[in-house]
């Protein structure tokens, strides 16, 4: 699984003719991303933004453009099929922004992506961005990012922006920022992104942003213990103030036993060598201490 995105990344936007898809496709293009085609079944033959061909199917779009990545804005009832169509077309990296995909559908899709060795990011995620290559595949506000050598990985969208904003304002640039999404079942996990950062020669340090609910942060901590990592990691876990048993928006934020609690996650990450960020306003400050 590679998360590298740069000038060689050729992106098809699925759902480009929709309001959200069109809006964000333009923002990506403005940022510098190489959007090579759009796909909306039944709208093949149209031109998007007077310049980008729209196709009826991923198969034809992939055939015509030799794209390697797709970015999905299709509404949730149709998004699972859009992901599958992407996988079957031979696309190797799929970023799904769509939120509200039923969990049972994601169980199947995860398996298919895995069987086909496809890197699926999301769903319900902001995407990823490489400021050095001017490549943004997602919905992040491009202006807050700046090139640099810190990798950011987070389950949350706006909290990622908060983190990046702090970094940028403190003069710390980013190598790659990945929002993995807040759903219980997601394609790319903390582990995958950490593994990438640890082996990425463009990354010197990592900001890790987790949440209450589930055990993905503990799994990430176990992974960190199992590898030989010398890169500094500053880790924030949000949700300590959320009461037990209440659902806080993210499906993942349902506290499930002790392991779902913020404290348990912080302990696990601290044990794995991470510097714990004690206040959401101190993300950049904490990182600065360790790099």
């Amino acid at each position, binding site marked *: 699984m590679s998360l590298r995105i740069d000038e060689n990344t050729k992106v098809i936007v699925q759902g480009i003719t929709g309001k959200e898809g069109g809006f964000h496709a333009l923002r990506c293009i403005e940022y510098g991303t190489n959007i090579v085609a759009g796909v909306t079944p039944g709208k093949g033959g149209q031109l998007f933004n007077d310049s980008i061909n729209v196709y009826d199917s991923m198969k034809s779009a992939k055939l015509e453009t030799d794209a390697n990545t797709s970015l999905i804005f299709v509404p949730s009832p149709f998004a699972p099929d859009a992901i599958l169509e992407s996988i079957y077309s031979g696309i190797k990296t799929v970023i799904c922004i769509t939120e509200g995909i039923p969990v049972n559908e994601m169980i199947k899709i995860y398996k298919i992506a895995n069987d086909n060795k496809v890197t699926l990011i999301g769903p319900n995620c902001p995407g990823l961005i490489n400021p050095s290559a001017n490549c943004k595949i997602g919905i992040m506000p491009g202006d807050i990012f700046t090139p640099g050598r810190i990798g950011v990985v987070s389950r949350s969208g706006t909290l990622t922006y908060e983190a990046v904003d702090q970094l940028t304002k403190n003069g710390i640039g980013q190598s790659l920022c990945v929002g993995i999404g807040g759903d219980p079942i997601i394609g790319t996990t903390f582990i995958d992104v950490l593994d990438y950062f640890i082996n990425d020669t463009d990354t010197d340090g990592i900001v890790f942003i987790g949440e209450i609910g589930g055990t993905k942060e503990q799994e990430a901590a176990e992974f960190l213990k199992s590898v030989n990592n010398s890169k500094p990691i500053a880790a924030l876990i949000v949700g300590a103030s959320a009461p037990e048993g209440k659902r806080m928006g993210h499906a993942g934020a349902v506290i499930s036993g002790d392991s779902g609690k913020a404290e348990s996650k912080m302990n696990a990450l601290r044990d794995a060598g991470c510097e714990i960020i004690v*206040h959401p306003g101190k993300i950049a400050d904490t990182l600065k201490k360790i790099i």
Partner: protein
Amino acid sequence: MKIHEYQSKELLKLFGIPTPESIVTENKISLLNAFKEFGSRAVLKVQVHAGGRGKSGGVKLVENSKDVNDFADKFFGKYFKTIQTGNDSVLINKILVEEVSNILSEMYLALLVDGSHQSINIIVSPEGGTDIEEVASKNPEKILNFPVNTILGPTDFQIREILDFLSLDIKSFSKLKNIIQGLYKLYLEKDCSLIEINPLIVDNRHELIALDAKISFDEDALYKHEDILDLRDINQENEIEIQTAELGIKYVQLKGSVGCIVNGAGLAMATMDVIQSSGLKPANFLDIGGGADEEKISKAMSAVLSDVNVKIVLVNLFGGILRCDVASRGFIMALDKYQSSAPKLIIRMQGTNSEEGKDILNATNYNISFAENLDQISKILMDKE
């Protein structure tokens, strides 16, 4: 989405899973009539979504009409609190009358999604009828938790393993198989997010019976299931939460004094943590979600303002898409309605047109402090008290 026990049991029956004989009643007369049908003994159970019902007196073995009468008077049309509802109370409209089961043993059985294994998991324990989280922390070896293979569903050998783990006789194999495969089918076909049978009992006829059942559903999949949507009982839900949900706002009412309005669940939780670290308590979780127009922003603010405990409203908006001038107009729309009692406001807005947004708010007479970042929010919060 949660449903009532009696509804859960109707679903179980539909999928071939044995439940006790029972009658759901909506008033005292039908409750008394139903009791007669069971002869001289029955169990009465108030129907509320909250857990911890039994410990709070909502379940009672009755052996005469007087007891039934008293139970009806005590609960019908009344508000009910349990350990899990906290200070909230929920209206009781229905009471379930159920045959008395002769219990030989009580077990625990649940299905839920396991994000780590990308699967539906089956969880069983021979320690039924109790708080499973307590079992999990004190006797983890008494819990069997395994992922179901997506292609296979629960297999025979796994069911034999469960049988063994629960110390059930091999003769119960087909009964247990019927229950587990039925539950799994129900879970998939109706897009459940949790099915919990606690306790699953063995009765004196050696039948396996779901004595209690709790089912909730994946809200993202409800659009496929009109039959399940019909089971919704909004009387059991928080009114503000229902209203905000209609606009796509995720709002959860809490107990603190600092209301907050944030975009994004993660940032909302971070904001709540900031409130807490400042020595205060959040009055709510609120994620306004995507595509926020004036009306939606106004509704979010109204929701927060309608909570009488709210002394401070903290707005934390961050994003490239949200237009801050629009947000400001939305806030004012709501504030103007609550003019007399408008609380103090702390506003941090970052995004398109943030300066215009601040200007619009500055032009009002509301008590507003602006913050540039989370640190400043903390400082203002600590100053405030």
